[in-house]
């Protein structure tokens, strides 16, 4: 009787193993296909249309139907908008994370945490629409401009969008710091501020770095909200108040209607591939940060 049950259990385990393994295999294959597809189409501009990669990366002359595929304006726009999002959202997010993990009374924390989680769930088109109807006219009024579209608007919208990620991850990073460190610091006569800046933040630094890097990844890949407030003008950004364009917004505007097989389409694929390389680079950075911790 016992033997029968054991063999049945063995068989079930075997089935479960096969099912789970084929699920993971399917997933790995899907990822490999996506990477392969993007790598093939994303480099076609260079080996198929013989367009110089240097001109693509550093050229500013963009004319999809005219055979000019310099993407530097979009790369610069993406980097500046993301940089602004991190400059505003990074410190603010970490500060709020510190507040929730170290200072907030329990009741305040339980009231505000769900609000932050709601922020994650708001669709990006809503952020973009709010930016377009409230933020852009406000910027125009404050700076006496005819139009408020541009990098400042995009940076502000993005900084709000990455806040939930940065807040919850940096809070988690602080929470796993052992209490003995807090107590030891207090025993040495350190104030709360000294404990936070000299003990807690340094020991949670790799976790906080991960929080910020994930914020960067979120910001650089964001499309819809950016497209609505950035102005989408393929001009190198010389001022935060001028319209600019980003990799994602250019792809979404022209991908549908750029003719298949044209250099125009291949250039858009190359921009998508570049975005993929950037986010893979960011994931590598996260791995490095986490390895340093352990």
């Amino acid at each position, binding site marked *: 009787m016992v033997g029968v049950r054991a063999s049945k259990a063995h068989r079930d385990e075997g089935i479960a193993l096969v099912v789970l393994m084929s699920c993971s295999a399917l997933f790995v294959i899907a990822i490999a296909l996506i990477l392969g597809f993007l790598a093939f189409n994303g480099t076609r501009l260079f080996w198929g249309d013989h367009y110089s990669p240097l001109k693509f990366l550093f050229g500013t002359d963009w004319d*999809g*139907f005219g055979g000019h595929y310099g993407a530097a304006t979009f790369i610069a726009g993406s980097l500046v908008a993301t940089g602004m999002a991190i400059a505003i959202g990074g410190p603010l997010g970490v500060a709020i994370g510190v507040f929730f993990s170290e200072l907030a009374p329990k009741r305040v924390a339980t009231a505000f945490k769900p609000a932050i989680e709601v922020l994650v769930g708001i669709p990006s088109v809503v952020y973009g629409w709010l930016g377009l109807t409230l933020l852009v006219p406000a910027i125009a009024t404050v700076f006496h401009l005819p139009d408020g579209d541009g990098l400042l608007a995009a940076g502000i919208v993005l900084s709000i969008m990455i806040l939930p990620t940065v807040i919850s991850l940096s809070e988690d990073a602080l929470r796993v710091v052992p209490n003995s460190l807090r107590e030891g610091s207090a025993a040495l006569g350190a104030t709360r501020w000294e404990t936070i800046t000299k003990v807690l933040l340094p020991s949670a630094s790799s976790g906080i770095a991960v929080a910020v890097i994930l914020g960067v990844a979120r910001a650089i890949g964001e499309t819809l909200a950016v497209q609505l407030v950035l*102005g989408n*003008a*393929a001009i190198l950004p010389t001022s935060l108040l001028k*319209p600019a364009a980003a990799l994602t917004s250019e792809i979404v505007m*022209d991908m*549908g209607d*750029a003719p298949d097989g044209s250099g125009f389409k291949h250039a858009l694929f190359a921009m998508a591939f570049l975005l993929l390389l950037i986010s893979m680079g960011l994931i590598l950075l996260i791995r490095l940060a986490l390895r340093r911790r352990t």
Partner: protein
Amino acid sequence: MSRSARLAAIALAAAIAPSAAFADTSISAAGSTALQPLVQAAADEYQQKNSDVKISVTGGGSRTGLSLVSSKAVDLGDSDILAPDGTNGLVDHKVAVIGFSVVVNPAAGVKGLSKKQVQDIFTLKVTNWKDVGGKDQQITVINRPASSGTRAVFMKTLMGSIDTLPPTLTEDATGTVVQKVAQTAGAVSYASFSGTHNASGVSELAIDGAAATEDNVMTGKYPFWSYEHIYTNGPPSKDIAKFIAFLQEDTAVFKKTGYIQIRDMKVTENNR
């Protein structure tokens, strides 16, 4: 099979039969979202009158429609633009005319422009409305993306020999363009009549003295218009030809959707 099961099967067959037996023609259309409302409205009416025909209409964009019809994935490819040279076997059916207007924010203080002035504004040679008879107000130019059908019509009908525009603010949908023009002092852009005729907070400009109206499009006084095309792969079958003819002649649907019938046009593309 038990008796009740047999009865149920008969009842089911009877319920399915009418649609299966009579829907012996199905037509699929895809492409231009500018043309989609007209094709959809005509299809609805056509199906009511011909219960044996089933028509499905989807969007996707002009170039998508063209590529779907060349690969025979759909029967009808709706397009704002002519099929590119070298697309073999596609047959063009001009089904309607659609008008576009140059729209400005009222702060510009102009009611109309000449073609030359439009060209100077969109190439950024003129940057203040006072230089073209308006108020002292900076001009903010808003374009559609390079791949847009509306932009293609704008370039072809108003920009003369100019074939590239300097980069400016760009919005990729008619609705967003109209909203931006309404909200930005001194803004100027272009969009189809259906997006601009009833929009608040924007004014449609006359071009060379002709107001942006359907009548002026028909008589050829107003230049900013384009044919809407339905493409078939090879000559259309009898059923498809019948539907296309119905769509072209269905005055009620045209009235309801705001397009212009080809037969009302007193000019053609060549003498606009």
